[in-house]
């Protein structure tokens, strides 16, 4: 069981990092980005392309992050330009469009052929309690929590954080205060896509060569984000790790074929309990 728990950390770390992204973007921009993993996966896939020129793995990772940032700029620009006044639902529905578009592009890039993507850490492991854990996993889980701490401290202590919080309350009012809402929207999207690209890099070596499963990582990630009630980034990160572990435990059991149903079951059970008093759609 110990083995499975550690195994679950690999996926859990990715879910956690994506979940932190989802929650921060939801809080800052009022959008639930269903496209977050797909956009990140596009950035990560661009590394494969750079790689095919025989580029140094670290350099290709760096360039991939730049591509991730650029993708975020495009997505953020669309949101800032066309969806500034839209409701959360409409914005989020638009990200479903981003997702479908990303999968279409990603499918063309991968095109069913097998790529080998070298692990930047060369598959090195550290041994904890007699178990070898890939360094990549440790980096991933640490990344998620460092991100969570960094973001919450940054929002409280910095001027940029104050501007972002003002924007999250009400974009139009913040604009009247001189906050450059469009620019900040692009910035947050771009940062979100860089983090998602980073998160996806870690799963790429072990995942299949088909693009849609990478896009589906958003399901456990949003489930984890819901466990943090789309507010608490620590709970979201923890939720991601826990969902990863739960999946790993189920995978090893005789219900292993139904592992993909786990995020759904967990989130339904928890949300129905937490939201049991939300009888009405709107306040007054």
């Amino acid at each position: 069981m110990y083995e499975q728990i550690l195994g679950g950390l690999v996926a859990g770390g990715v879910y956690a990092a994506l979940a932190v992204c989802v929650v921060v973007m939801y809080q800052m921009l009022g959008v639930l980005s269903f496209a977050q993993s797909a956009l990140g996966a596009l950035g990560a896939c661009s590394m494969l392309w750079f790689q095919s020129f025989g580029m140094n793995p670290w350099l290709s990772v760096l360039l991939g992050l730049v591509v991730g940032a650029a993708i975020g700029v495009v997505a953020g620009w669309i949101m800032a330009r066309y969806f500034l006044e839209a409701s959360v639902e409409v914005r989020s529905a638009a990200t479903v469009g981003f997702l479908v578009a990303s999968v279409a592009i990603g499918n063309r890039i991968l095109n069913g052929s097998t790529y080998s993507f070298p692990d930047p850490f060369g598959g090195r492991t550290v041994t904890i309690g007699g178990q070898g854990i890939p360094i990549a996993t440790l980096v991933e889980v640490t990344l998620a929590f460092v991100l969570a701490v960094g973001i919450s401290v940054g929002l409280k202590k910095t001027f940029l954080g104050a501007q972002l919080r003002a924007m999250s309350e009400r974009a139009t009012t913040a604009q009247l205060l001189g906050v450059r809402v469009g620019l900040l929207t692009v910035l947050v999207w771009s940062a979100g896509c860089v983090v998602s690209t980073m998160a996806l890099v870690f799963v790429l070596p072990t995942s299949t060569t088909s693009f849609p499963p990478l896009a589906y990582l958003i399901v456990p990630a949003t489930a984890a984000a819901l466990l943090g009630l789309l507010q608490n980034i620590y709970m979201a990160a923890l939720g991601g790790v826990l969902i990863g572990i739960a999946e790993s435990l189920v995978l090893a059991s005789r219900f292993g074929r139904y592992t993909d149903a786990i995020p759904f079951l967990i989130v339904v059970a928890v949300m129905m309990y937490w939201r049991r008093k939300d009888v009405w759609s709107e306040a007054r």
Partner: protein
Amino acid sequence: MSGLRRGSIPSLLTLMGVMLVLVAVVYPAPKYWQYVATVGLIQAAIGLSIGVVYGSAGMLSLCQVSLAAVGSWTVGYLSGQSGIIPAPWSIPFGALLAVPIGLLVGLPAMRLRGVNLAIVTLGFAVAIYSVGEAGEVPGSSPTFFVSLPAWLSGKGMWFLFVWASFLGLAAAVIVLRRSRWGLTWLAIARSERAAASMGVSVFRTKLTAFGVSAFIAGWAGGMLVATIGSPDPGTFSPLECLSFFVLAVMMGAGYWEGALALGFFNAVSSALLRQWNLPPEIGSLLFAVGSVQVLSAGHGGFSGDVRRLINRRRRRDEHVVTLRSRDASAPAIARTDGPPPAIDIGSGLQFRDLTVKYGAVTALDSVTISVPERSIVGLVGPNGAGKSTLVDAASGFIPSYTGNIMVDGRSLDGMPVHHRARLLRRTFQSDRTVGELNPGDYLRLSAVKAVTIAEIGEILDFVGCPATRTRLDQLDVRTRRLLMIGSCLVGQPKVALIDEPAAGLSADESEDLGLRLLDIPERFGAAVLVIEHDMELVRLVCPTVAVLDFGKLIAFGPTAAVLDDPQVQAAYLGDELVVPA
């Protein structure tokens, strides 16, 4: 009254016309294009299903294609694996079996909304996909072959079957949209609170939307497996769920023509891309871009454009909606100041020792007010005094209050909101009318039981609104406010709570409104509690007035005396402003 009599007939005739053109074009076409059209019509049916749950009821469900999977497994099992029931007779069973699964998915929607529901339904889509891929569910394995009987294997016969199915499903959706079920779907999409205060059970409404959409999706899934020949898990992948959602948004699948366009564009574009040897991804890319464009423009997609075009042409012949002022020749009911109010009354509305606490804040502190039957009582007080809390408590939105609320001697305590609506109706400060409906349909929705055209006409006459086919979101705020009052009255309540009806009205409009309010007790037999800041209106309409300040009842009695009371003036204007007479 022409605006009231118009039913679903024009839509049904248009549907029939479009479908006849379709069959005339496709039936003589080569087999390949018949196949493309067949698949397109099945996809259009899935579009209808998304149209019901998202387009009408406003619930962000991303798993409608997964419900089609349930239908396909059923047909796969009944007609392929076990062969108990041959296709196409197994298809209705597939549709019926999808219903309980749809209801199950609908249950989380009772507490989760918007993006939260989207996450859960997407999770369900992934779960269903993984279950289907495992191939252990009866009928889900692609090794079983579903064959069609001889009479459906002839040229174009299966296309005709699918064509007739879509025609039937689309016609049913058209009729349902105009039925009470359909009206309630639109109502909960607009506001759950407002719908419940009109007597609509939000629980039942959400379940009917999920149930109907699951039935349609299940039927589509069954037809798909019979078309392809064997169940294929890839057809029902989460990506398909998302692609269909995107397409439904782009085409505006809430209306049948949007759903049909969805199927048409999806099937034809993928067929053309195949013919031209272009990657199929181009299609999804175009649809993704299209959906983002539609969402940003917010005009309801393809079907929204079509309807606007038709409406623009029609509106030229239609009168601009102008409210009629109250008939000046009708005698205004003279209002005299009432006697001191009785505390214990057997009829009308009574609050006794009503206390509401939000955490440490006491919003209402032991308030006792009575509104005798067929009378009008005003409720005034500065912002934050607890007026709206009182209305919320009466209409049932505050589960934990102490004290009693009675209507005609019947206790409302513990009664669900939509049951209270039989005795008591309310309006809201903000506009909560259902924008997609015309005034007649809006009133039909508000009446819990069936109403005659004459009854609706009477209410429209009372509020001075012509029987127009114009949608409410095209009407001005004043008309919508008056229609909200009309929607209270059409429910024939014992008590109507009218919350700030004059907000934003000019002095003349406010006076006109006041004269209409004065008519309510006699004309509709209801007691009225008017919450208002406009003191002119209060003086005009209310013989008796109650004043709340910081949750306490500070005065209750004849209007002139109460409004002249220094304590009341202090509460409104602040102490330092009160000049002793």
